[in-house]
Structures are given as structure tokens and as C-alpha cells.
């Protein structure tokens, strides 16, 4: 019970840091996945006076992923009120060419403007439709969402850091006496602080283990999977190797820093 109390407060603080970190990672991944989805469904329509060379264009404008010609049949059908077949063939040749351009990733409004400019620099390209109104709104919404989550994550981080500093005081008080006594019998610094570092490493590991179990469970839960499927994105919620390593690293770093602060701040009482 005694040792449980010794551990719990630091473990809670560390777990909340790992939590906000991983939630932030999940949101970041979701947004990126969502952007990819948007990019897949998003395209520009370009009107050109002559047939375009897709290869040439994608080489010059790197943001483009594919160029696809739209068949003019649909437009002609609409005009098709008593025009002879011969005339239709003629119309097909004289009618400007319509193209659908796909992008590699979802562009920012500025990137979009740049692409538009580059395309219009070709004399035979007469019009580029970016559907910029819809695009901009979606993009701004996405940005807003990301900012809100960032603010939230940072607030959690700040509160946790405050918690940790409070914990630091308590630790300092608790460990100072023992470190002082050990020092009076000539214990070198490493020996005096060994318990502290052992405690902080153990706590860091416990915090990591708790977070690992929770996120492993969370990421394999059918309910969670369903939620992500519902909004049409598939992401790695918790990478058991990569995310784990980051978690363990952050947990150890914070905890060992805390112990180092105490050791460096230790002064012998007169």
C-alpha cells in the first residue's frame, strides 16, 4: 500500500501525458487520411483548345497525379437537336477539349492558386475550374478541427506539467531527507540518487505499460473500428512498435528529467 502510494501520482501524470500525445497522433493521422480521401475525390476541370500531353503536364506540374480527358459526348447530346452526323463529327473536332485533373494530395488554397496559374500559363488552356468555394470551406473546416485538437492537447500537457511540478516538490521533500542522511555518511551522488532513478524508471515503465494496454484494447475494439469506418477512413490507431517506442521514450525522458531536477536541486542542510 505504501509503495503503491509512492508510485500512483507520478504514474497518473505520465499516463495523462502519454494519453494526450497518442490522442493527438490519432487525430493527426485521421486528418491526413481524410485529406487523402478528399484528394481522391477532388479534381480540377481544365478546358484546352488542343489535345494535351498528360505526361508532359504531370512532369512539369508535380502536384498533378493524373490527367484524364472527358468525353465530349455528354455535351454534344445536349446540343443534339437535329444536327446531322457529319456536323456532329465536325463539332467534335472544333469543340474545346475537357480534362479532369487529379492531384497527389489535398492542396491548400494557396497551392491551388499556384497550380491554376501554372496551368493558365499555357496559351491553349483557356479555363481552369477549381471549385474553389467548396474546396476552401472544407479545407478551413479541417484546419479548425486540427487547431481545436491541438489547443486541447496543449492544455492537457500544461496541466500535466503543473501536476508534475507539484509532484516534484513532494518528491524533493520526501527524498531530500534520505539523500541528506546518505550524504552525511559519505555516499557519492550516484548512490544517493540511485533509489530516485530506480523509482522514476519503474514509474515510467508502469505508465507506459498502462497506456500500452489501454490503447491496444482501444485500437482492437470493434466499436472504435466501426466509428472510423463510418467516417470512411482507415488509419493505424495504435502502432504497437512505432507508437510504443515513442511512448516509452517520452515516459522515460520526462521521468528521468524529473529525477535529475531533484538530484541537481539537492543541497545539504546545515
Amino acid at each position, binding site marked *: 500500500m505504501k509503495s503503491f502510494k509512492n508510485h500512483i501520482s507520478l504514474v497518473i501524470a505520465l499516463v495523462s501525458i502519454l494519453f494526450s500525445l497518442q490522442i493527438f497522433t490519432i487525430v493527426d493521422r485521421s486528418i491526413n487520411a481524410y485529406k487523402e480521401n478528399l484528394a481522391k475525390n477532388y479534381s480540377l476541370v481544365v478546358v484546352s483548345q488542343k489535345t494535351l500531353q498528360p505526361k508532359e503536364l504531370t512532369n512539369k506540374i508535380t502536384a498533378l497525379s493524373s490527367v484524364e480527358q472527358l468525353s465530349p459526348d455528354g455535351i454534344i447530346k445536349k446540343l443534339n437537336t437535329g444536327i446531322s452526323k457529319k456536323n456532329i463529327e465536325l463539332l467534335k473536332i472544333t469543340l474545346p477539349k475537357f480534362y479532369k485533373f487529379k492531384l497527389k494530395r489535398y492542396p491548400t488554397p494557396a497551392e491551388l492558386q499556384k497550380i491554376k496559374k501554372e496551368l493558365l500559363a499555357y496559351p491553349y488552356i483557356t479555363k481552369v475550374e477549381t471549385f474553389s468555394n467548396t474546396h476552401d470551406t472544407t479545407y478551413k473546416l479541417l484546419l479548425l478541427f486540427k487547431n481545436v485538437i491541438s489547443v486541447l492537447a496543449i492544455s492537457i500537457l500544461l496541466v500535466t506539467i503543473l501536476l508534475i511540478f507539484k509532484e516534484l516538490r513532494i518528491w524533493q521533500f520526501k527524498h531530500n531527507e534520505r539523500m541528506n542522511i546518505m550524504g552525511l555518511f*559519505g555516499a557519492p551522488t550516484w548512490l544517493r540518487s540511485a533509489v530516485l532513478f530506480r523509482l522514476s524508471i519503474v514509474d515510467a515503465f508502469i505508465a507506459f505499460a498502462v497506456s500500452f494496454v489501454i490503447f491496444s484494447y482501444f485500437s482492437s475494439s470493434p466499436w472504435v473500428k466501426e466509428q472510423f469506418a463510418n467516417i470512411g477512413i482507415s488509419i493505424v490507431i495504435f502502432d504497437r512498435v512505432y507508437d510504443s517506442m515513442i511512448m516509452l521514450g517520452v515516459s522515460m525522458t520526462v521521468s528521468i528529467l524529473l529525477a535529475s531536477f531533484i538530484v541537481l536541486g539537492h543541497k545539504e542542510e546545515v
Partner: protein
Amino acid sequence: MDKVIIAQNLSLAYSKDETIINKANFSIDSGSFVFITGASGSGKSTLLKSLYGVLKPIEGSLVVGGVELKGVSNAKLNFLRKHLGIVFQDYKLVKEWTIEKNIMLPLIINGYEKSITQSQVDSLLKHVRLQHQVGKYPLELSGGEQQRVAMARALAHNPILILADEPTGNLDDYSSQLIWNLLEGANEQLKTTVIVVTHHIPETMKVDYKHYHIEFGEVHEVI
């Protein structure tokens, strides 16, 4: 004879306004038994603090075990302290350790082997009559018992110099005699230098001793 302590013009203070010990001169032979007396607040504990290097001289020089304590480095101070056995007036036991672990501390710091450490702790517990309290924590013991744990810890590593601050302050006559016997034994058999702060010099002392008295910031020998 070797001097284990040499103080020359030694002044001690906690703040600039008030010197507690003023230009003291004394030296203590290796292997001697020394009593320090003085009224409450006269500076007895302060003088001991300077001997184990917690309070640095503000003036003069103080050499303990060949180490000059004025401006001493941490490494040198640790080296010296490893060979001291200190009984603090407020015991300074580690609350979260059992009494055995407390007694073991100087042995661990001096790098003794586990087997030696264990047998040494067992025999010390017998010497201070605390075998029946094995496994307990300091706060589960009476003041007098804690004082005896502190005594056992000070003796554990056969130090060259024992500094004891009122080591019988909280003890009944029987336990006090136990402590005096232990200190005399260490002095006689191991040639350990012993410096004891006390209010009463026991009448039963078998070994020769020196006596210093502190008054008005001055340290003088009582002959």
C-alpha cells in the same frame, strides 16, 4: 602522536551577524577519548557539524583526518565521511528503511560484502539490545531505541573517528551505561578516536579522557 583533528583560529557561524565559535584552537590526538560540554545553545552541535563538514569554517583552518575542511571538495568530503561514525542529536534515521537497513548504510557506502554486512548488523543489534525489534521501522520505536539504532549505525563500519552528539540524551541509566561501554570498547579495542558531546560525564569511565568546555564561543580544555 598523530593528530586526528587540528583546529587553528577556527570560527564558525550560520550568518554574518553571529559567530557561534570564535577563534578556537585545539587539537585531538588519534585514539583519544574526548568529552565536550557546555550549556544548551553554546555551540556543541555546531562544533561537531564543522567536524563532519556540514558547516564550513568562516575563518581559520580545520583539519580532520588529514583533510582541510575549509573549501574542501565534495569528493574529499565524501572520502572523509566514509570513515566517520556519527550519532546525531536528532538521530537522522531514514524513516522508510527498517532499522537493519539503517544500520547497514555505512557498510553499503563502504562497499562491504553482503555476508559480512548481515553478520555485522546482527551482532550490532545484539550489542544495543534491539534483536527483538528486527524488521521494524524507526518510527515504530521509542526515542531511546532510535538513539541506540543510531549508535549501532555509527559503529557499523569501524570508523576512525566517532562523533556522538548527546548519545545518551534520551536513555535511562541502564541503556546509557550500554552506550558508554560500547564507546569505551571501540576506543580501547579498536583505538577509535571518540568525541562525545554530553551534559554529564559518567563517573564510571575506565579510559583516560580529555574534556573541553564551550562557553561564550570559546573552546577551552578543562584539566
